[in-house]
């Protein structure tokens, strides 16, 4: 039987804006996914530990604080350290295009910045998980 895609949605660091990320959580829920929301002010370590225990397919991190060049690389490195690179990392929030391009090269699978339509997010998550295959 097909299993619902599991997504961990996280806010990292000193960023208290979670309206957008809650909307994304709701969009993914309405697409039939299991969404685990960590709440505000998590560390990169918290996020990776939670993602492993929850066995999620995808980590979605929203950053509006400007600290994305610190936290995304840290999350990617921790996943490597813990032998968990099958977990897909996506990002959202306010992130300059040049930084997004750099982070994509480092391993972030996709970014959903402001004005991304809900369908685009859902389809991208499904496509990424399908492309990774069963694990």
């Amino acid at each position: 039987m097909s299993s619902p895609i599991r997504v961990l949605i996280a806010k990292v660091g000193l960023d208290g804006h979670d309206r957008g990320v809650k909307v994304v959580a709701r969009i993914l829920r309405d697409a039939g996914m299991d969404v685990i929301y960590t709440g505000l002010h998590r560390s990169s370590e918290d996020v990776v530990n939670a993602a492993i225990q929850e066995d999620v397919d995808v980590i979605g991190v929203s950053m509006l604080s400007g600290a994305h060049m610190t936290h995304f690389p840290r999350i990617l490195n921790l996943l490597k350290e813990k032998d968990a690179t099958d977990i897909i990392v996506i990002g959202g929030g306010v992130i300059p295009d040049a930084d997004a391009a750099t982070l994509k090269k480092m391993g972030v699978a996709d970014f959903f910045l402001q004005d991304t339509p809900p369908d685009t997010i859902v389809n991208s998550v499904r496509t990424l998980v399908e492309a990774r295959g069963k694990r």
Partner: protein
Amino acid sequence: MIPSLDLISGVLAGRQRDVARLITRAETSDDECRPAINALYHHTGKAHIIGITGVPGSGKSTLVKALATAARQMGRRIGIVAIDPSSPFSGGAIMGDRIRMNDLSGDPGVFIRSMATRGSLGGLCRAALDAVDVLDAAGYDLIIIETVGVGQDEVEVVRASHTTLVVSAPGLGDDIQAIKAGILEIADIHVVSKCDKPDAQRTIGDLKTMLMLDMPRDANWMPPVVGTSAESGKGIGELLKTIQTHHNYLYTSGRIQDRLRMIAESRILKTAEELVRLRFVRHQAGSFIAQVAQRQLSPYQAAQQLLDE
């Protein structure tokens, strides 16, 4: 894909990735994982399983965090299975129990798993006890099952745990609520959360009055009422002691055998129901559905034929 049988050694060694993966497979009714889960069952039975239930917003997740933190200081390894509801329409879920438990994240002696109900009624989800087994086999010796926020009649958790805690929050309903049948009857221990609030004493009083009138499930165990405040930490140590007292009571009185048999019986029945459900979903549904919809077969006849096949 790693075969599930190859995850066993990792689970027994407490490797979190393998524990997590096997729980996912159990949750998705994956036949492939069954031999592995069956094999692990022989490594279970060591953990003390605590069920925590109560209405939405009564403070279950916050209490779980406070209890787990206190139990960690005593060197226990804690497994937590936190259940939240699935949408009846999309099937999706938003699980937020971790939000209250974030202080526990990063402690390798704590494993938290969120699970969605996926259509199960009764406060648990179908695979909750598979998850408990995997955690038990992985060496977590205190396992807490946090049910979805329940109403008055979702009492399945009592057939899953050794010690059942019912959390009541002050200010919700009067003493009439306390004399109704249902969820309040299943408690081995009553917890009144948020007991720093002014009306908490009244809730404690109402519960105690109810208990005096009650015919307890077990004549030798009168369910205690413990007031807690996760914010100030008040009552958490006492609650942990009371849980241990109940555990000791079950073993010294021999009542643990009744509990274990009750859990086993319930699990066999639930699993059999699930196997029938899966058979229906996977193979036979189409023709039976049409025949029942067109009044050629009654629902009972269709179900009977499905079972006979």
